[in-house]
């Protein structure tokens, strides 16, 4: 594989970084990344990865664009209200960079389709909005041996880590038991500011590029805790992989995907509900 003159011109400002260079750009071109969720986090992740020249970019979403999405999901437009989010996102990305191969997965991920959907990709990016899908992605990534770049946001806060990478823990190592459904708030119910998802999604895209081009991440076994209201950032050390983990441990008890809705007692369907003001 090589780079055309047009690609060298297009990506020149990232290729002149000493730790990217031509080898880094070629690695980016050869990489395939799956962005799960094309909402508040998925919008900047997809835009920055596409613009950086990722070879193949998969987009997973089952939802259609609603006008209440656009305040934070800046990849979608007024014209795309009502159409599939994957299609809306793909159209925006193609306008920005037609060199990338885009793959739409317009579906609700579940135990029946997750392994086949994730298998062709090198890195999975969790931009979802619900607990069952987060456990599903975690288990599927462990079973397939892929790293999971996980971001989340709510109100003014955000969290970021990379699971199952370079000996670090998986999501279940940290959270063997799902949270009680009544403690879980999604962005539709709790609210969120667009720039908070923008900051977290940008950081997820940055970790993907570092993993692809440099073979490393600052967030394997570490978690960023961002408080956008206070302007406070904290990076903390996490436990390592747990030998007793049900999915990535030495004697895993979960060897195939399970029913995550039942496991979490919550539904993965984050459909927009009317706002109570």
């Amino acid at each position, binding site marked *: 594989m090589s780079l055309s003159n047009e690609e060298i011109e297009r990506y020149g400002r990232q290729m002149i970084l000493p730790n990217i260079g031509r080898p880094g750009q070629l690695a980016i071109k050869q990489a395939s990344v799956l962005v799960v969720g094309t909402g508040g986090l998925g919008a900047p992740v997809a835009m920055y990865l596409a613009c950086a020249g990722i070879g193949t970019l998969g987009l997973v979403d089952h939802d259609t664009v609603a006008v209440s999405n656009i305040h934070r999901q800046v990849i979608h437009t007024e014209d795309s209200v009502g159409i599939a989010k994957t299609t809306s996102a793909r159209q925006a990305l193609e306008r920005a960079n037609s060199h990338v191969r885009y793959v739409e997965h317009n579906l609700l991920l579940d135990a029946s389709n997750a392994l086949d959907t994730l298998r062709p990709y090198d890195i999975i990016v969790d931009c979802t909005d619900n607990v069952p899908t987060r456990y599903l992605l975690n288990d599927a990534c462990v079973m397939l041996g892929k790293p999971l770049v996980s971001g989340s946001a*709510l109100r003014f806060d955000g969290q970021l880590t990379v699971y199952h990478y370079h000996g670090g823990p998986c999501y279940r190592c940290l959270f063997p038991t799902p949270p*009680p459904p009544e403690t879980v708030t*999604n962005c539709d119910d709790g609210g969120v500011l667009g720039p908070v998802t923008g900051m977290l999604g940008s950081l997820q895209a940055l970790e993907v590029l570092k993993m692809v081009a440099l073979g490393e991440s600052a967030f394997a076994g570490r978690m960023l805790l961002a408080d956008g209201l*206070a302007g406070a950032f904290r990076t903390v050390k996490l436990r390592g992989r747990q030998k007793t983990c049900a999915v990535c441990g030495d004697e895993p008890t979960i060897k195939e995907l399970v029913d995550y809705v039942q496991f979490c007692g919550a539904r993965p369907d984050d459909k927009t509900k009317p706002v109570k003001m």
Partner: protein
Amino acid sequence: MVSLELRFSGGMELLFGGTKAVTVDVPLKAGAATMRDLLPWMRDHLLKERPELFMDGDSVRPGILVLINDADWELEGDLEYALKASDEIVFISTLHGG
């Protein structure tokens, strides 16, 4: 008495009357008392509502990450960690939104 700095984020602060950080003198013995002693003391003296959203059995409920001096409490022995003066202990509700 052991003086601790307690912090709450990711929504945990809502259970503690909106407090994001508080320095408290806890009537427990430094070097002897552990996190196992601190949690029920916090529940009884600081928590403002719904104790079941903070504790589950003798530990925190699932979905809360506890940090002791910027490290996952699992690295420090979790419930058995012996409290020292000026420890900073953070309780974070993990987020799932996007």
